């Protein structure tokens, strides 16, 4: 999900500079307007392409649609007013997402949803049916016990499986 801002920004800057040097070499008097590279937002957005890239509902909507057409991927109370602990929850969430991505490699159909109810951590994920069910059950039990020992709280996994990824749009 993380897009490297600096590398694509640098690439655009280089192309802008190259274009400007080419124009100055020509003898036509043209004014050049070089805009700063940062005007476009590129956080959590997939740009329009040829029409062959399948996107899920989550990927197709931009982050300003959160609370309008999108929900939240990680639900906890520490971002509310007057509640502390936001940084610790965020670090836990990042670890859990990487852990799930690595344990169920290639099987995740969509982003992992993390919910905190009281002391309990509920991790919800949509999986593709790439592995036989026995392996799935083993991996679910393994990740539940490992995460609950690591975070000292009960961890439950809610898994639903699909045949293929649910496509919302082609971009």
């Amino acid at each position, binding site marked *: 999900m993380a897009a490297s801002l600096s590398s694509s920004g640098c690439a655009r800057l280089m192309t802008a500079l190259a274009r400007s040097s080419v124009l100055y070499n020509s003898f036509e008097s043209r004014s050049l307007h070089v805009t700063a590279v*940062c005007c476009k937002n590129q956080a959590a957005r997939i740009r329009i392409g040829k029409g062959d890239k399948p996107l899920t509902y989550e990927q197709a909507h931009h982050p300003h649609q959160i609370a309008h057409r999108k*929900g939240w*991927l990680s639900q906890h109370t520490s971002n509310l*007013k007057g509640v502390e602990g936001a940084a610790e929850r965020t670090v836990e969430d990042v670890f859990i997402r990487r852990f799930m991505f690595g344990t169920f490699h290639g099987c995740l159909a969509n982003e992992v*949803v993390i919910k905190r109810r009281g002391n309990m951590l509920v991790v919800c994920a949509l999986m593709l049916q790439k592995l036989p*069910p026995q392996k799935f059950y083993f991996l679910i039990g393994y990740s539940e016990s490992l995460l609950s020992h690591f975070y000292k709280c009960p961890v439950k996994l*809610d898994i*639903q499986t699909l045949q293929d990824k649910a496509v919302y749009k082609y971009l």
Partner: protein
Amino acid sequence: MAAPLALRRDFFSLARILGGISQLGPRGLSACSSHRKCSQTPFHFLQTSSPFFHTATYLSSTPLTITVTDEPDTLFQKVLVLVKAHDRAVLDSYEFFATMAAKELGINMGKVSEPPKDIERLTLLKSVHIYKKHRVQYEMRTHYRCIELLHITGCTAQVYLEYIQRNLPEGVAMEVTKTAMEKIPDHILEPIWKDHPIDDKSSK
């Protein structure tokens, strides 16, 4: 806490409610009201030929023990339950659930108000290096809902609050303010100068 015999009646009605409400359940209410994420809805085009499975969370609760004592029960003039969340639809469904539970238990409800939302905005630089003129703004919205319960006993309040709190949806925080009347302490009932008039004369 003190638990007189009247608690037994409350527990039976609570058991009836838990049986009745938990079918449509606060989880069911919050699931159908707010969440539009595709990861939560089961997809209906699952084919039965290939094996599929679905694990769900099953919560187990320990059975509650009832203790009977002769101490008088605390009486609360007002119990304020303030719920905070990022999503207004979740608060709507939770308010419906809490008011229905209070009505079933026969608790006097005051007004259910909605304090105005708080928006916390941050303005950060968009780029890692330079580009000071281009910034990005984030905001965090906190919606509130306030439920008032009037003239409630300590045990009823304990049972109701425990039921409400066990069914709090994820991402919702609750603050409870209880208002009770206390007896004025004896040492400030009478003014001091009435008890010790001799001390002033002897110091002179």
